[in-house]
């Protein structure tokens, strides 16, 4: 069967090499020009437990995963139990029929194909390690797609480059044996994937994109408190510390991480900290400190289902309102929720520029789905990230006479120098202060400083990108969403519009400042509205009501710790009508 899309899921006990195999699968296709989106699901355990990886590849453009699986590579029985319902009509399940017999437990579906590949026996016979089982399954899967296994072998060599030759060789062998078992022994060919132009695509996660933009933006100090949520970003920075003159730091807690970043930023470098919800809950103090001292800092908040520790390896959009109002008192900030890794890249670049120009904290919100799923893109445009510090910082030449650190300027921005300049000496003060920075309790001064800080909002409104409308201008229904649900909603409206339902989508990346004018325009142009959010309390709908007074009545909310699938959205939308 000729297809343009293949969705593949591999699952099993952790320890069978699932993350690596998933990554190889995705990368093998992205290298050859296919669009790929993948996602990994794993429990909060270092070893053991059940884990799955899903990868969707397509010869055209895709925005998210989909529900229907073409090939389910089940390394254990539980994977079949949990996921065989997702297998598409006449799809395939690969399993080890020598290890467990289907009939014993599984409710066998008549409409799909179960194909036994003796993972365990091959592993034993070939002297492979347990962790390579998934590679056998991967090889078998490629055979089903009739895809040249050499491409995957190349990927393995790439991904494992630097590792011992034997490791690479064994991994490759596992791939090849799985492949051959299907092709030569069983002689099954399930799908034939449409061929695309073999232009290698970038395959990056949200985390990768944030990291890359951080490096490009000239971030010189990065810190986190060790956490499963943020260590991919930390490790990326740590690996390039010397190449790019960056200090990447594991702090003892989030309090140190943010305060060190503020200290470094005060001295004059661009800084970033990453954290997830519980860690962000400890950062309120530092956030306020950055705000009143007007010290730029970029904070990346990697959302997880909460409250408290919640579900650290799953996904949710639960921290929007918290990030908007975190910390005591009132001050301007910018909150950005990118919708995909491409937006992660460009918006992280913007975050650094805005933070530095406006001397404010900027918060970038991701979630597990966006952080850890790979997406393909043609390339990143470097021109869109420019670190133009020279026009922002004062030099000794600029300063004549008294220097007012908190000068009450028209746009609220008070230019500052990096530390060490002869003429630019100043203090940053977390107490209310006068224009020099000296502590000052006077009522008029207080009002003046608060006004000065908030005057920045005017400029910020020019900088930010208003919500974007996707789909037809005139639609019967408008979906509203933010951040990482962008992909599933885009897929959903593609399906809906192909069914002759005119649905469009307003997607927010910047959450604060709020561009009321454009939102009101969108509201006026929409007839029926529905909120789609990956949380329980519909936080975006609250934000919209707060600023525009418009309350969106229809809500599609998911808060099981799992990202939306486009099909779910389509079904929910259909129920509304």
């Amino acid at each position: 069967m000729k297809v343009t899309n293949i969705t593949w899921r591999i699952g099993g006990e952790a320890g069978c090499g699932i993350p690596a195999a998933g990554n190889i699968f995705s990368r093998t296709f992205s290298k050859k020009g296919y669009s790929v989106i993948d996602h990994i699901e794993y429990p909060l355990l270092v070893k053991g437990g059940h884990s799955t990886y899903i990868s969707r590849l397509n010869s055209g453009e895709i925005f998210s995963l989909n529900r229907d699986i073409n090939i389910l590579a089940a390394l254990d029985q539980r994977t079949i139990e949990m996921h065989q319902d997702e297998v598409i009509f006449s799809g395939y399940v690969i399993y080890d029929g020598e290890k467990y017999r289907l009939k014993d437990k599984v409710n066998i579906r008549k409409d799909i194909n179960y194909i036994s590949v003796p993972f365990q026996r091959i592993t034993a016979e070939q002297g492979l390690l347990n962790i390579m089982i998934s590679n056998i399954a991967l090889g078998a899967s490629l055979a089903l797609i009739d895809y040249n296994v050499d491409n995957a072998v190349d990927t393995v060599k790439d991904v494992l480059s630097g590792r011992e030759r034997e490791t690479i060789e064994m991994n490759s062998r596992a791939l090849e044996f799985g492949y051959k078992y299907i092709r030569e022994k069983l002689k099954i060919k399930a799908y034939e994937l449409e061929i695309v132009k073999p232009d290698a695509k970038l395959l990056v996660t949200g985390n990768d994109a944030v990291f890359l933009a951080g490096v490009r933006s000239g971030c010189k100090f990065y810190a986190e408190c060790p956490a499963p949520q943020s260590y991919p970003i930390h490790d990326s920075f740590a690996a390039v510390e010397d190449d790019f003159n960056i200090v990447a730091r594991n702090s003892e807690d989030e309090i140190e991480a943010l305060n060190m970043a503020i200290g470094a930023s005060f001295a004059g470098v661009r800084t970033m900290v990453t954290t997830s919800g519980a860690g962000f809950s400890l950062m309120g103090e530092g956030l306020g400190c950055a705000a009143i001292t007007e010290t730029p800092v970029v904070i990346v908040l990697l959302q997880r289902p909460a409250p408290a520790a919640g579900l650290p390896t799953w996904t949710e959009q639960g921290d929007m309102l918290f990030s908007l109002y975190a910390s005591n008192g009132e001050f301007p900030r910018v909150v950005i929720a990118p919708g995909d890794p491409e937006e992660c890249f460009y918006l992280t670049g913007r975050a650094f520029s805005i933070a530095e120009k406006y001397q404010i904290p900027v918060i970038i919100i991701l979630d597990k789905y966006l952080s850890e799923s790979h997406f393909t893109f043609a390339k990143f445009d470097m021109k869109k990230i420019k670190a133009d510090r020279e026009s922002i910082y004062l030099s000794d030449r600029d300063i004549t006479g008294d220097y007012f650190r908190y000068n009450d300027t028209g746009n609220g921005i008070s230019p500052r120098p990096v530390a060490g300049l002869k003429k630019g000496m100043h203090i940053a003060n977390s107490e209310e202060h006068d224009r020099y920075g000296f502590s000052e309790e006077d009522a008029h001064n207080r009002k003046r400083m608060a006004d000065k800080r908030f005057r920045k909002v005017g400029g910020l409104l020019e900088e930010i990108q208003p919500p974007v409308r996707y789909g037809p201008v005139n639609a019967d229904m408008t979906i509203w969403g933010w951040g990482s649900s962008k992909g599933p909603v885009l897929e959903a409206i593609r399906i809906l519009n192909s069914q002759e339902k005119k649905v469009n989508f307003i997607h927010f990346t910047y959450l604060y400042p709020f561009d009321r004018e454009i939102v009101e325009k969108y509201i006026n142009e929409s007839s029926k509205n529905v909120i789609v959010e990956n949380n329980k309390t519909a936080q975006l709908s609250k934000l919209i009501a707060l600023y525009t007074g418009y309350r969106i009545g229809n809500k599609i909310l998911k808060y099981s710790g799992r990202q939306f699938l486009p099909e779910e959205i389509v079904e929910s939308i259909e129920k509304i009508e």
Partner: protein
Amino acid sequence: MREEYRLKPSDFNTERRPTWCRGCGNYAIHDALKKVFVQLELYPHQIIMVYGTGCSGSGVNFLRTYGFHCMHGRAIPIAAGAGLAAHKMTVIAVSGDGDIMGAGGNQFIHACRRNINITCILVDNHVYGLAGGQVSPTGGNDYKAGSATRVISVQPINPVSLAIASGATFIARGFSGDPLQLREILKKAVRHRGFSLIDVLAPCIIYSSVDIYGYYRRKIYRLEDVKSYDRSKKAEAFEKSLENDRLPTGIFYKVDEPVYEDTLKQIDRKPLIDHIISDIDINKLLNRYY
């Protein structure tokens, strides 16, 4: 870096006059700082001072350098961050006992063990001065301090012992009533490469018994006067730090150990703040993602 003018202590004055109570230990510390800066030929713009919250923190208004007045207990991480970014500058954290030993205890022990290259002046008055005179973590039962309604017999933190246990490489105790020694210590501390702590007994005359200076004078002796004392021995320094009948001042411990900043190749060539970042080429990096 020679400067065009000759430094004098008053170069470090701001237009604001100190608001501390007369007799407060903070005066001696600021005085010592200014004199030491002059001796070391450190110009105001070569120095970053970080202040915690509290009476000592208001010093941000009175000392002319680059300065940061931070949140309760956070002087050390702010200083550490500033120091990393501008490691050619002299970075000094000045903060209270309530601050550093109360809220900031965690940052303190980690700064010690990392041996980051800053100087920490602990303005130790045994009370949360600005917060209302409550007994601070260093406040003991040896003299009445603070506004406690009842004396709770918990052991005070001994900053010197704690710093030794945590791995600081320059550890001293000073007394605001002994300005000469304080200056000597301070000078050495600023010069020391690595984390230096000076626990300065700096009486709060509001929340201490009136003769607190006399009390200290009777109790204190100088370590310099103990010829046999070897300040390079950790266990010995620790034992010394436990002395309580009579209080040693001076340098308890000083060793040269790897400095955090020195282990960082990425700041070897020049300070982080000096890098030009306008067009950083990440294409090679990007290739890994294709």
